[in-house]
């Protein structure tokens, strides 16, 4: 492959036609299943459906990372992966922290002031 002739050892590879098509096929399946689950209500229970589609979304993100963004532990001497891991930690702190804090704040509001009450959560 011409991707190997870049010389610089950490030049990003672009995959091959086959890896793109494999990634595409996986992505289509991982997209179609959640849409089908929500449209048809095949699992019946909304809670179970929610958990399943979140799990599928996570898998699809990993598929995209590997097949489209060509993530691996070696690109740029591992600094790409380091930046990604650092970002994931920051994202986790931000997301979980926000949701946690705001959830407790809602719980401690006076009755009738909860943000969800008006809409009937």
């Amino acid at each position, binding site marked *: 492959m*011409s991707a190997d002739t870049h010389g610089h050892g950490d030049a990003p590879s672009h995959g091959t036609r086959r890896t*793109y098509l494999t990634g595409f096929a996986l*992505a289509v399946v991982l*997209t179609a299943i959640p849409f089908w689950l*929500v449209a048809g209500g095949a699992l019946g229970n909304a809670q179970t459906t929610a958990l399943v589609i979140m799990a599928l*979304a996570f898998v699809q993100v990993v598929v995209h990372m590997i097949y*489209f963004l060509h993530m691996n532990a070696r690109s740029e001497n591992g600094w790409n992966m380091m930046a990604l891991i650092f970002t994931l930690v920051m994202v986790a702190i931000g997301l979980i922290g926000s949701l946690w804090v705001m959830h407790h704040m809602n719980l401690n509001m006076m009755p009738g002031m909860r943000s*969800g009450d008006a*809409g009937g959560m």
Partner: protein
Amino acid sequence: MSNAPTMTDAGEPVFYLADEHDHEAGGSTMLGFWIYLMSDCLIFAMLFACYGVFGGSYAGGPRGSDIFELPTVAINTSMLLISSVTYGFAMLAMDEDRKQATLVWLAITGLFGMAFVGFELSEFAHLFAIGATPQRSAFLSSFFALVSTHGLHVSIGILWLVTLMVQVGRFGLTTANKRRLMCLSLFWHFLDVIWIGVFTFVYLLGILR
């Protein structure tokens, strides 16, 4: 270079490089661009957090299940997914130094991107028409903030893509243009990854809620 400090003739340790070795032009661009993408990822994470907090605050207005239409979202999702693959094919053509094929695949990618933005704008127009504006409730504010930030990214990506098509058309697949195309490739695939979060957490879970 070794980790042990080198010594001067007088025997004192030297902790810096006397001569910085040469870097090829643009050699650090890909890492720098990746770090930009990671910071962009944080922006989206916080918008998702906002949506997670306000997503249930309807203020008596429409709920997600009232206003989201599954077919529209499915079409949007497939547009973006197909454009990701066609961009991949553009990169493969670029690797093989086939200028025309690269341009054709880039044009196809741009068309799918424009279709995505078009469908999203028509969805927004429909929402505005039925009174589901960002001012209506915290749920809609956070919804529009998140989804339109993504749409804005895609729009700017299309602008960038057209710019690069002109560049490649005029100057060919030069080293600089290849580097730029690789940056846009990361950007484009990254937006598709963000969209996975949007269609799952905003649309699908919104319809279930």
